[in-house]
Structures are given as structure tokens and as C-alpha cells.
């Protein structure tokens, strides 16, 4: 529907390192590149084309009451086509926030962006990128932040469930899960944390999982990737919270999304829209650690308390 979003390019085509002199955590300001669609109407950067015509839907009068008189938040969503991310995007769009969406599949990203635009996001920018490509992160983030003219919230929602059985047989499969769920978000957070800390502002909301709280026989590979992520995010909070940056560890229980389709007991999983409503509120407040639904704080406390000599006999 929106061919301008369907950009087949990916950041893997970007230069391998932004700074050959060595690791440097200042985000580069790249020249305008056809790889990224700049946020509509943002135009903070010279050379960024300003969209003369807003989509008609943005002129609608149907915004919710709470959006009246409130400045839109500038929200970057990494992994925007994941089920939980998309449900949050709908809520942010409906209240008129400014969004920049990043995902790997151009068709899916175009559909999510069209939906956000139609629901009333004040601007929607998007970039097609494979976030496994950590070398492309600084340029990607610079485009997103420049496109929105700043950053209030970065929501890291990319991740894969992987297949435990396959991972047990092959380190390659295990490594792919660890890379997508741990290494790639760590790379993004390294850049984003320094950007936010320098400005003493911003919220970094990271989707981890209750699965990271204890290694279980049925999914310890996914679990360990999320355990590492939780520890990293918790530590990052302890480093930069005092700089005025909110760093959030979000731990959902099982949620009904495409990712959990094949899992058994799915009828009992949490509704993704209810989870998103909780998260949008929690991100507004910048809470430290969020279990969602809240009952998982108690469930995981119980699961953590089971002695290992008993736990190892269980089929959890």
C-alpha cells in the first residue's frame, strides 16, 4: 500500500565500521541515504526531504482525549514487527506519538507503518534493517534519531524463540539465538546508552523475558540469552540511572503472539493487547523492572526458590 516504505536495502550494505580508529561511542551523523525513510514532517536535519503532504488520516480529529495538549513522544522501535512491539505501536500511534520503526522484512514493516500512520501517529519513519548486523547499528540509530529530531524512548523488541531441540544439536543454532537475543541488543544499547547519558534524558525499554530467571530443560538456550540480557540491562541501569536515563528491564510471561504460536497451552497465554497497555503505561513512568502480567513476579519468585536438586528432576 505504501511503496515508499518498501525499501529492500538493508544495513548490511552499510560501511563495516563507522570509525576505523577504534571503538567510539559517539553516533555519527551520516549523509542522507536512500536506505532510510526519514520521518514525515520531522526535517531537523538539513538535506532531509520534508514530506509536503501528510497522509489524510493524520488530519483526522479523532485523537483520544489524552493526546490533546501533549507533545508527541519520539519513540524508536527496534524489531517493530514483533507481536508485542506492534501492539504497543498501535497504542502509541493512537495517541499521536512520533514513531521510527525498524524491522527486517520490508512488506511486514510497510504494513505496520501504514497501520501506525492510519491510527494517527504524528509521524512515522521506518528503516529496513537486519539488526543482527551490529556493524550497521550506529548509522541506523543516527538516521532514526535525526529523522525524529531526537529520542524520548527506544524500545528494543527484537528477538527469536529459536528451536531448543535444534540448538541442543548444533552450536551454530545456539549461537544464532544468542546473537539475536543478546549480542545485537547489547550493541544497540551500548550506542543508545551513551547517547542518552550525554543528554541526561531518555528511556531505554528492553524486552527480556521471565525465561531468563532460571535455566530450564525445555528452553535454556533462549533462557540464557534473556538471562544475559537481563543482567546487562540491570547493570546498565545501575550505571546511567543517575545520569537521568531510565533503563527498563521488561519481563513478559508467555504472550499470545506469532512467536509463541507452536507452544502448547497457548490458550492460557496473556493477551498481547493487555500486555501492551501495561507496557505503554510502564514506559511512560520509566519503571525499573516490569513483569507483565504482574503475576509473573510471584510465579518466578516461587520457581527461583525451588532447590536445584528438586528442579533438575522436573520437566519445566
Amino acid at each position: 500500500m505504501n511503496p515508499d516504505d518498501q525499501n529492500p536495502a538493508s544495513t548490511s550494505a552499510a560501511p563495516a565500521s563507522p570509525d576505523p580508529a577504534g571503538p567510539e561511542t559517539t553516533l555519527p551523523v551520516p549523509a542522507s541515504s536512500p536506505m532510510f525513510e526519514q520521518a514525515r514532517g520531522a526535517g531537523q536535519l538539513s538535506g532531509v526531504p520534508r514530506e509536503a503532504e501528510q497522509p489524510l488520516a493524520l488530519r483526522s480529529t479523532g485523537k483520544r482525549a489524552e493526546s490533546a495538549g501533549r507533545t508527541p513522544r519520539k519513540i524508536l522501535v527496534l524489531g517493530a514487527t514483533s507481536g508485542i512491539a506492534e501492539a504497543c505501536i498501535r497504542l502509541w500511534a493512537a495517541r499521536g506519538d512520533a514513531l521510527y520503526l525498524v524491522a527486517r522484512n520490508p512488506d511486514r514493516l510497510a504494513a505496520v507503518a501504514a497501520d501506525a500512520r492510519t491510527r494517527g501517529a504524528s509521524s512515522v519513519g521506518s528503516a529496513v534493517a537486519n539488526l543482527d548486523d551490529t556493524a550497521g547499528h550506529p548509522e541506523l540509530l543516527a538516521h532514526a534519531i535525526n529523522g525524529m529530531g531526537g529520542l524520548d524512548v527506544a524500545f528494543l523488541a527484537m528477538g527469536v524463540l529459536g528451536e531448543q531441540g535444534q540448538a541442543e544439536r548444533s552450536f551454530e543454532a545456539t549461537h544464532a539465538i544468542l546473537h539475536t537475543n543478546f549480542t545485537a541488543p547489547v550493541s544497540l544499547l551500548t550506542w543508545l546508552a551513551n547517547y542518552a547519558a550525554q543528554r541526561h534524558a531518555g528511556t531505554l525499554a528492553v524486552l527480556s523475558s521471565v525465561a531468563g530467571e532460571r535455566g530450564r530443560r525445555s528452553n535454556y538456550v533462549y533462557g540464557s540469552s534473556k538471562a544475559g540480557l537481563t543482567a546487562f540491562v540491570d547493570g546498565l541501569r545501575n550505571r546511567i540511572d543517575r545520569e537521568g536515563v531510565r533503563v527498563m528491564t521488561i519481563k513478559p510471561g508467555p504472550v499470545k503472539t506469532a512467536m509463541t504460536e507452536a507452544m502448547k497451552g497457548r490458550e492460557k497465554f496473556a493477551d498481547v493487547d493487555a500486555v501492551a497497555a501495561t507496557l505503554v503505561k510502564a514506559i511512560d513512568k520509566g519503571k525499573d523492572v516490569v513483569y507483565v502480567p504482574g503475576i509473573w513476579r510471584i510465579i518466578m519468585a516461587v520457581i527461583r526458590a525451588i532447590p536445584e536438586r528438586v528442579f533438575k528432576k522436573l520437566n519445566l
Partner: protein
Amino acid sequence: MHYAVGMPTAVELDFNPPPSTEASDKAGGPPPFESWGRYPEYPAELKQLHWQGDYPRAIDGVHHGALAVGMGRSYGDVCLLKDGTLLQTTGMNRLLDFDPATGLLTAEAGITLAEILDFAVPRGYFLPVTPGTKYVTLGGAIANDIHGKNHHHAGTFGCHVTQFELVRSDGRRMLCSPTSNPDYYAATIAGMGLTGVIPWAQIRLKPIVSRKINYQGIQFHGIDEFLDLSSQAGNVEYTVSWVDVTATGKNFCRGVFMQGDHSQTPAPLKPSPKPKLVFPMELPGFALNRMSVGAFNSLFFHKQMKKRVSTLQDYEPFFYPLDAVLKWNRMYGKRGLLQFQYAIPWEHAKEGTVAILYEVARSGLASFLAVLKAFGDVPSPGMMSFPKPGITLALDFPIKPEKSFALFDRLAEMTREFGGRLYPAKDARMTSAQFQAFYPQWERFARYKDPALTSSFWERVIGGQLGVKGVGR
């Protein structure tokens, strides 16, 4: 590095994990996909479509037929496929475009009418046609070419579908509208999902200034009073009647004629609150009987004390009285319910309706959701569309195998004798001969059917005539 002689090399060692000792989870899988009538019940594989590009990839390796389904609000087996693959579209529910100047809304086909209303009402727009529940998908509304209380003004839902995309199982994608692929456009509206999968569609919404409906309820006794009220209400947008099918003698064919228009007085356009009530359990089979339903019907008739009442009412209770209680079909217990809905043309509408109401009253089979309406003459673009000018009557029966099936079969035969037809979306019983008499255009329609798609309904009424599983041409 030194290796001891005779040590196995990496190639010889088995690095594979031993087979799991865990007892495999007991088989059973997901519960079967149920239609709203919960009859018949068939096992099928259920797959979710989340993205427009998921189809036809989702049916790779599927050899027993497939069918796209939405919310499963059809009563019978048009949304079922025994031992086949059901592709549920509800995860494909994105809004793609909206023009507040014209009311043209483009959305993925798995979006529900409830989700469309949540978006459109605060923006001053309403559905052009709505059925008695908002929990149906856009794709389902097109596939069954649903109708509503404004049929005599607006025609069917298909009349307001400006365009959609149709994907065939061979991967061909077609833009369908009155001018682009008009034959597939006509075959797909009311095409029962058999012509292909609809990833997205565009409809024209209509403007409103208030959530309120100017409502009037008028008691009537007998078919003549109903027909008079119907003809007097020609200028009213919405009309429908509830009729007491348990009453006999002097109360025969008594009912309440309900009519309404959108209020023209501007008022706040808030979104609807979410329903909180869920019907808690299945009632035992004996709970709905002649006594309890007769009592309910008497109460409903006399709840309206005066001959005529007028109020300003929110659109939710006016259009969707039953949506306030989720899963209300549990009221009919485990066995489920049968719906019966006919349309009989004006020529025989009156005698046919009287004869059928009489037959229902005489059978003593309880029905308290009986709805009577005069259809208008706005033609539908759909080749297989159900409504035609005349009278339509819709009834529910709890399923009591011998009795309700015998009554149903009698009513279907009577419908045929009066030149009427039944509604596939509400049917679980009509015979092949009846279907082909009701819809003589079926052979032309079958030319547009996708060979990979079928439904238990289609297998029942056509199946054998088109070869194995009705997937041939």
C-alpha cells in the same frame, strides 16, 4: 597435540543428544475450531495468518483442502473443513489507510467490525451495513455478504466494498473491484471464502454525528400489522422485528417492530467500552424448553408495556444486544444450536411466513431469538448473495437430534415450495438438491472457485459433483 592410539576421532564420537526421556505430551492438540452454532464439530488443522504474504505459503504441502476463516461466527459449516486446514485471519488486522474526507477505509481482512468501529466512531464514521454482532471479520463480512437492519436502504455489505485483493492458491494476486476483474469481484462477494484469500479490502464508511439511535418500538399482532409497519417505515433507515414464535391462538405472530435512525444531534463520539460479561458455563440441554422460552418471550413482549415507545438509545444495544454477553452460545449447551433463515420473495412472502411460523409454533421446539424483516430491492454485486426482495425470518433452535432436524428439514422443504432460499452462513442441514434449487447459479460460481479451497458446507452441497473433495472443476 597428541592423541592416544585407538581414541575415537570427533567424527566417530556421537555428539548428538540422546533421545529425550521425557514422556511425550499427550496427543490431542488444540480444541477443534467451532462455528457459532457448535454444530457440526469437525477436527481440522488450524494455522494463523499474520501477514498478507503468509498466503499461499501457509498451504505448502497441504493436500486435503484449506479454507480461510475469521471469528467463526457463521452458525453452521461454511467456516469448517473436516480434516482440512483452516487458516485463521484474525492476526491480519491492520488498518492500512483512511480518508476522513470520503470515509474510505482500507484494512487487512482479519480486522473485526468491532475494531473498525473503535477506530471509525470517534472519527465520525459508522459501518455502512452491520449484522447483529460486531465480532465478525471484514473478510467474513464479504465472504458471506452479510446484511443488516438497513437492507431495504443500503443493500448488503458487498454493496459498500469498493475493492479488495484476492490471492489464489497458485500465488496469483488480483485486484478486484466493479471495474477490475469484475467477475472475481462478483464471485468473491458471498463466495463463502471459496474463490481465494482476501488479504485486504476497502469499504466506504458512512458519516455519523452521534452514537445515538432514535429508536421506536411498536407492538404488533399478526403478519398484516407487521407488513403495514414495514411499508410505513420506508423512510426509516433501520427496521427489524422480534417475533414470538411460541405464541399460538390469538397471540399468533405477535411481536415488536423495532425501527431507528442515527440521531442527527451532534453528541460525543467516544469509543465503546469493552464487554465484561462472559456466559459462564454451558447450560444443560433441558434448560431451554417450551416453558422457559415461552416465559422469556412473554416477558420480552410485555417488557414494552405500551403499544409504542420512543427513546434515544446508544448504538451498542440497538445493533448488538447479544454482544454484551460474550460466548452466549453456551446457553444452548454442549450440543449447540441450529439456525434457520430463509428469504421468501414477495409473491409468496406472506403465506410462506405464516405457514412456517405456524409449523414452528406447532412443533413446540423453543426459539426465542426469532427475527423478522422485510428485505429491500437493492441488488448485491455478489453472485451467490442470499437476500432477495421479500421477507426474511431467522430462528434458533437448541439441537435435539431427532426433533429439531426433522423440523428443520420440513422448514427447508417449505421454503423451497414458496420459492425462497436459505442462508448458507446459517445452515448446517440443507441438502444438495435444495442448495442447487436455491442457488441455480452455483455452476457459474464454481468456475471461479479456487481448486485448493473448500469447506464442509461446499462438500455437503456440491462435493461429489466436482470430483474428490470438490476441489476439481
